[in-house]
């Protein structure tokens, strides 16, 4: 029985310390951005690229879209769907992408 418990412990440690989900699961909402905002530098687009952008700049833009102080088209409607905490997590994740 003791050996069995040790076995559980080992398996659990292995499972939890595995590289699976190494920070690559984006926070809720973040993965959708690349539908319009290209992840790569191709194709050229009038829509700004967000990967690697300063998280503070993304946050400022999103809160501006949300309160209407920054005029836009779809972004004013989309930004209203996210809280400060959600936006912060998304901005931080986007900034960390290459």
């Amino acid at each position, binding site marked *: 029985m003791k050996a069995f418990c040790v076995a*559980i412990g080992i*398996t*659990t440690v*292995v*499972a*939890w310390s*595995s*590289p*699976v*989900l190494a920070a*690559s*699961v*984006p*926070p*809720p*909402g973040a*993965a*959708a*951005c*690349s*539908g*319009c*905002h*290209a*992840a*790569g530098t*191709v*194709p050229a*687009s*009038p*829509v700004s690229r967000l990967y690697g952008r300063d998280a503070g700049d993304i946050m400022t833009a999103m809160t501006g879209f949300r309160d209407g102080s920054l005029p836009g*088209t*779809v972004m004013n*409607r*989309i*930004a*209203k*769907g*996210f809280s400060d905490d*959600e936006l912060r997590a998304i901005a931080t994740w986007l900034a960390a992408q290459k």
Partner: protein
Amino acid sequence: MGINHRMSRREFVGAGAAAVTALAFPLPAFAQAAARVVVIGGGFGGASCARALKQIEPKLQVTLVEPNRTFTACPFSNNVIAGLRSLEEQQFGYDKIAAGGVTVVAQAATAIDAKARTVGLADGTSLAYDRLVLSPGVDLRFEALPGYDEAAAAKMPHAWKAGEQTLLLRKQLEAMDDGGLVVIAVPANPFRCPPGPYERACLIAHYLKTKKPRSKLIILDAKDTFSKQRLFQNAWKELYPGMIEWVSLSQGGKVNSVDPATNTLITDFGNHTAQVANVIPPQRAGRIATIAGATDNTGWCAIDPVTFESKSAPNIHVIGDACIAGSMPKSAFSANSQAKACASAVATLIAGRTPEAPKLINTCYSLAAPGYGFSVAGVYQPKNGLFADVEGAGGVSPADVPRDFRAREADYANSWFATITAEVFG
């Protein structure tokens, strides 16, 4: 071919002592080896999901099953019908997806054994999986519209799956005399691309106005309201006065049957004989979803909105047009957005952890004419087992804006197509 004939989990579990271990530690222990995810359907949903899975966890063995070697995109195919774009611009291959480590199998999936966790392919081979993602899109319900079948579609094209049908409708419009009548029959909800029929009406009218200005277009609709209705109706008045007539359900718009011999559409209120008849029939989830046991009596797939796992078929996840996604429309953007969230959920489940509730976005652009676009956007989260709109967010483009706003949204529509197809296939 790259088909894996590894032992299925069930066979493995059956192997005596290993069964104890497997029961005690269901997923994580095996996930370390190389969990197998099979994705069926290489459209905006499936191709996005296969790629996202590999990006999130490169160790996963990801197989994409898609019989066609070339994908033909539906968004922007109305531009092809209107002569504004070539079909080649709608077409994409799977080479880059394969180069990224996804095994692409150019076979049709014909059987699914949800208990044994295997997918049978048309060539008689099979694939074992730990988790299966279905993104089969829609099947046309020919049987739901008397008189309409595949043979009738060669005369009265649906053009609701891009490719030959798109070109057929284009050719019929080119061959039509000035002064001809074009009729578009639109089904009741739900169906793929809710604003699509009305955008199609606009862009066909654009062609007619330019080349055959005495012609007319009638939309026979099985609904009393439709997506972006005010924006479309304003655009019809502004851009195509007197050319487009919309007949709603309550005005007798529902097409009950068609007669391909005479190109006639029959409603309760009378018959319409068209020079060009575009019949968009009712739809359901692609057939493989039913084979998998993932469809309910509506013909669509009920899912858990956190994991996208089927409510009736365990370890099978359904994304895109085939799933019942509550407020989310059946669009390429939705499918791509769901695909990435599903990939995160599947990778998290394989790691033996609990997925976080996703937040999804949809943005759909429609073009009323070249340089004249508008959009609907939404933000969604799981609520009562479905995706619900996040209150206060989303909505359609404003009704009263200067033309440069429409021009900007048309630019964004074009760049959306370039960006999303690069993300999925490029």
